[in-house]
């Protein structure tokens, strides 16, 4: 394949990665924005989504499509419920103190990961794509399912944006983000908003997990890579800035895709980290962050 089509393929791969990454990182950024905490277990929610999608494909009859459709609904719901439980049982009790929360979510990471290892084993589990077709370009054929993943992710990003800007819950979340005490004084049920924000963040990661499984296979260690990429994204975009997160996800996702195709995925992660170093030297608050945050 000559350079032009090769680059086109790389950009295409990068764009698909970028959409999925935007979804995961948006969840992380939302949780940080509203609750001022970093959830280290975020990647495990992604992994849970993927593992649950595999379980649904095994348990639900009626072909790959039915299993996938059920997973798309059930997966995020189960993960959301777990997030609410984690919020109530652990995070609320330590009063969302930032460093304690980080340690607690590290603990949560290992608890979830090792439970999945116990229950599902260490094998990578493939899932058949619900829809299979190939888009043929003049130079190569491309998996149609990957394009659908990008499309669905785009719709979900749009949906999250609408929910944040048009609904009452979105209003509550934005109010809590700006000034938690003032929001409480105006009657916003801050604790309940916290639980919902944490659940919503986890569900975004879980949906991404369900979507990605037919491309990537479900494995109990798959949560780490998206977690680190999301970190890179939120640092470049500025912690808590949803707009910055989405923009940075595309920068990181596409450059990751290009470097992965031309060189290696490992090198792509190293390059992305160096990119962060550059951003930190030039703008410590991130591209869209509040200065000095």
């Amino acid at each position, binding site marked *: 394949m000559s350079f032009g089509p090769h680059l086109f393929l790389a950009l295409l791969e990068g764009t698909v990665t970028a959409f999925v990454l935007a979804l995961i990182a948006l969840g992380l950024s939302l949780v*940080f924005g509203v609750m001022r*905490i*970093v959830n*280290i277990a975020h990647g495990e929610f992604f992994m849970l989504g993927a593992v649950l999608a595999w379980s649904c494909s095994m348990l639900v009859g009626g072909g790959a499509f039915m299993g996938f459709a059920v997973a798309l609904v059930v997966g995020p719901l189960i993960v959301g419920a777990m997030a609410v439980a984690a919020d109530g049982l*652990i995070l609320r*009790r*330590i009063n969302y103190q*930032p*460093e*304690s929360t*980080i*340690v*607690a979510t*590290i*603990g*949560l*990471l*290992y*608890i*979830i*990961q*090792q*439970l999945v*290892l*116990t229950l599902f084993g*260490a094998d990578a589990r493939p899932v058949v794509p619900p829809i299979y077709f190939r888009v043929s370009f003049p130079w190569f054929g491309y998996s149609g399912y990957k394009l659908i993943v990008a499309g669905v992710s785009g719709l979900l990003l749009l949906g999250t944006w609408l929910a944040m800007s048009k609904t009452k819950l979105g209003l509550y979340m934005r109010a809590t983000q700006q000034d938690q005490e003032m929001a409480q004084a105006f009657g916003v049920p801050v604790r309940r908003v916290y639980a919902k924000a944490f659940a919503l963040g986890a569900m975004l990661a879980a949906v991404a997990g369900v979507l990605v499984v037919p491309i990537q296979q479900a494995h109990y260690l798959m949560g*780490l890579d998206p977690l*680190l990429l999301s*970190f*890179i994204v*939120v*640092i470049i975009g500025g*912690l808590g800035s949803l707009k910055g997160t989405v923009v940075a996800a595309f920068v990181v996702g596409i450059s990751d895709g290009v470097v992965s195709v031309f060189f*290696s995925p*490992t*090198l792509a*992660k*190293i390059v992305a*980290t*160096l990119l*962060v*170093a550059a951003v*930190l*030297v030039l703008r*410590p608050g991130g591209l869209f962050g509040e200065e000095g*945050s």
Partner: protein
Amino acid sequence: MSGRLTGKVLALHLGILGLLFIAQFVLPAYHHTNVARIMVLATYAVGYNILLGYTGLMSLGHAMFFAAGMYGAGLPIYYLQFGAVPAFCVGVLLSLVLAALFGLIALRTSGVSFLIVTMMFAQACYLALLYFNKITMGDQGFILSKSLESVSLGSFEFAFSDPAVKYNIALLLFAGSFLLSALLVGSPTGRVLIAVRENEERTGLLGYNTYKYKLLSLVISGGISGVAGAAYALLFSYVGASFASILYSIYPILWTLLGGTGTTTGPMIGTGIMFYLVDIASGLTSSYLFVVGAVLVMLILWFPKGIMGAVRTRWLPWLP
């Protein structure tokens, strides 16, 4: 907390070291090796505690300093037939340089951004070890015992395969870092570090350059972690990328928290207990890291001060 190394404090520290020295004549072989290993890892925890416990900076990426020490010592032995002492120095130097460079960049951020950045860079180092696999043999690891010659001092010959040599070198390094941390905490510099932990803004307003002090603390902490990494490579003659993985950044947090952050004696106790807990759990199940998660959550919920922190509050207020 007492200021200088007063009699009581000195006696406690020397007492602990004395007990560890005597222990080697009593312990059965299996535990003998384990305690040697624990002392090297406790050195790592002591280094970590200087940053977390006495400066208030939590790092999620200390494995990169441990691995820098390990590879800095291991690679020259493997490729260039370095002796143990020069290789050890290269390892420590490498970790010091890495800590300084990393600090210059990462300390531009604060709070949770700092945490995220430490984790990211450590992961980049880990991936780099895997990426340059041809040189580092990252995923398989390599063994040093064949290329490492014994060190002769005067008429004495020290072979690294001898358990007694292992144990006493580990003890010596642990004692060094242990006493260094106790001295540092009591010194004027240490007082400033503690002030940074308690209230960075106020310390800055008093005229201290908090950035410089945080950098200093990071370099000392990274350097001690490098000492532990280099010692681990020499004493247990194995070098592998798994020691740069995220788990080895989490372990020192766990050890320090369990023993008590901001206590000089806590890291050793936390390391010892966790080492045996993980050892027992790994014999029972392949999901033994569950213990790591469960202990972390329980500590944060019910026992945030750790063992020595609680002892200090209840019984011994003079504990440093």
